[in-house]
């Protein structure tokens, strides 16, 4: 038998053993009962958020192929993510996943998005791979997704998933209590472009509301909406937030003569949401920091927390990563 034939046989055997070693069942976020291997060791996550769940649950070494929010190459990744996973370049995938690629990698568990890559998901399930499907649009969805992922990974990850989900629930409750009697500043959240704003159903809007603000664009439907500067002038936001992946910087808006009439610009309250591992405005565990950071922006001191200590502790406890002074400075911590 030639060498590559032996390899293919081995990979096939590993995969088949993986497929038939299903010892447990979990109910995925879409309510499907999915048989999962006792200890999934080779995971593919064509679901951008799901990849970060795996990191947060301590399963980074089990990721063999991962899709990362907005990343096409490892060089585009933030330094913190590259330090967290030195093997990022070999795992990073983008675009439409390929069932044969997954099979060749000997994958024994797949995390998938319920809407994106639907054809891949259907085919992968038909071929026999255990596929967990996610649709995460709210904080409650995220908490449940973390629990399910923990259960699917088994062992210590199950407790970690549960702890993170509880942390999400506790943080939301603490924020609601701390901001209950306070005014709700009008907030504009802009995405890749300054005039591309978040609609009412988007996670970013939920984030603003949970942190004690009111999104000026909450009345818009759909997804990101292009609006005119005139509309922004009508809204007159008191705070403007730029997404971590925005090409614009707060100083650009503060210097732009067209934007000077806005309350947010006049008072200098234009901020770029940080990103260290994952963007803080997306439904991944880092959104916990997004909540705390935004609450501090909108209602300074109301929570009674030391944000920088929280940022340090979150990365240490969730990812096992010590942040550098430079990374801390990047999120406004001296």
């Amino acid at each position: 038998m030639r060498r590559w034939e032996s390899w293919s046989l081995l990979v096939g055997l590993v995969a088949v053993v993986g497929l038939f070693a299903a010892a447990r069942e979990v109910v995925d976020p879409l309510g499907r009962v999915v048989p999962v291997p006792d200890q999934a060791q080779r995971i593919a996550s064509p679901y951008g958020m799901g990849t970060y769940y795996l990191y947060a649950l301590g399963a980074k070494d089990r990721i063999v192929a991962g899709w990362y929010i907005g990343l096409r190459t490892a060089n585009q990744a933030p330094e913190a993510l590259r330090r967290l996973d030195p093997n990022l370049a070999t795992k990073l995938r983008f675009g439409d996943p390929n069932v044969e690629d997954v099979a060749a990698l000997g994958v024994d568990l797949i995390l998938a998005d319920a809407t994106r890559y639907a054809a891949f998901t259907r085919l992968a399930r038909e071929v026999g791979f255990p596929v967990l499907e996610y649709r995460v649009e709210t904080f409650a969805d995220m908490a449940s997704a973390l629990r399910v992922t923990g259960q699917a990974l088994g062992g210590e990850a199950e407790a970690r998933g549960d702890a993170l989900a509880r942390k999400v629930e506790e943080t939301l409750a603490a924020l609601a209590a701390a901001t209950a009697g306070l005014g709700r500043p009008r907030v504009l959240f802009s995405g890749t472009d300054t005039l591309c704003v978040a609609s009412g159903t988007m996670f970013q809007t939920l984030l603003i509301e949970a942190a004690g603000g009111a999104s000026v664009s909450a009345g818009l439907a759909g997804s990101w909406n292009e609006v005119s500067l005139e509309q922004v002038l009508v809204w007159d936001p008191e705070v403007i937030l730029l997404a971590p992946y925005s090409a614009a910087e707060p100083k650009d808006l503060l210097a732009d003569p067209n934007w000077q009439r806005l309350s947010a610009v006049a008072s200098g309250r234009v901020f770029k949401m940080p990103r260290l591992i994952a963007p803080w405005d997306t439904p991944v565990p880092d959104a916990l920091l997004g909540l705390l950071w935004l609450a501090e922006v909108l209602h300074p001191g109301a929570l009674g927390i030391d944000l920088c200590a929280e940022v340090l502790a979150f990365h240490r406890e969730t990812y096992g990563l010590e942040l550098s002074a430079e990374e801390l400075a990047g999120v406004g911590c001296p």
Partner: protein
Amino acid sequence: MSRRRAWLVHLLWIAPLAAFVGSLLVGRYPLSFASLLQGLGEGSTSLAGSILWRVRLPRAIAAGLVGANLGLTGALFQGVFRNPLVDSRILGVSSGAAFGAALALLVGSPAAVQGGAFLSGLAAVGLLLLLGARFGFSPLVLVVTGVLVGAFFSSLLGLVTYVADPLRTLPAITFWLLGGLGGTRWGDLVPVAAVSTPGLLLLLALRWRLNLLSLSDAEAGALGVNAKVFRPLAVAAGTLLVSASVSISGMIGWVGLIVPHVGRAIVGSDQAKLLPASAALGATTLLVLDAIARSALPGEIPLGVLTGIVGVPAFLAVLRVFLRRRGEAR
């Protein structure tokens, strides 16, 4: 016929079969010929069998069918419209189908993409025939109304992409528009085959008469073919094939434009020979390109992108030959 050309004609019929078998041997998952045969016998009980039966076979059949449809309709339309620069996209059916697929993705129902694309493609054909019934079915009217129908559906598609979620829905729409056969399953093939097979057979059966459509209506009438009836019939059958193809593969350009020219170089411009030759060449082309699309990189390469990258240089080569014959190029 020269010996070289006769040899080429024989090759034309063997090529799709060879490409079909060859494409079963190629993929990201390493399968030797022996394990392929073993998988063939095992069905989907083993991983190798699953890869062969559930991943490669339906996809190869889809590539063959879509390629044959695009090649044949390209040749058909070039003849019917007496224009060597038209292909299956000229009548707006692709744009119609693209709108339906994008709409299905927008409303969050990926399972409805194929049906949405097909129905919306049919709506485009319906609109075209309705306009034809009003303004006549001359080649000029068909091309103009086709372009208008295409522009209308392109605008609707623009509207859908404008309101789509840029993180999830928009990439799905974009990838669909770029064309590809990733994730094709047996179930997806049934409606395509149900429409394509009778459509292909009908056009192949009528291929002798199709030659007459490239004449004027009066000349065709003198030779016993009522072009006013036969032309919309041929166009409707062709657009049905395109609609069925686009519904499964997304937008795949260039195959329908280039393949008939290559076919013409081998079998001449007699539609009776050109139609089956273009179908065979189209199937071969798409089988080969799809094998590259799913094997070259860990992720899928959009098939429409590959056909463009291969198609444009091929078109330039065809143009050079064409101009040379007219003595306009060195």
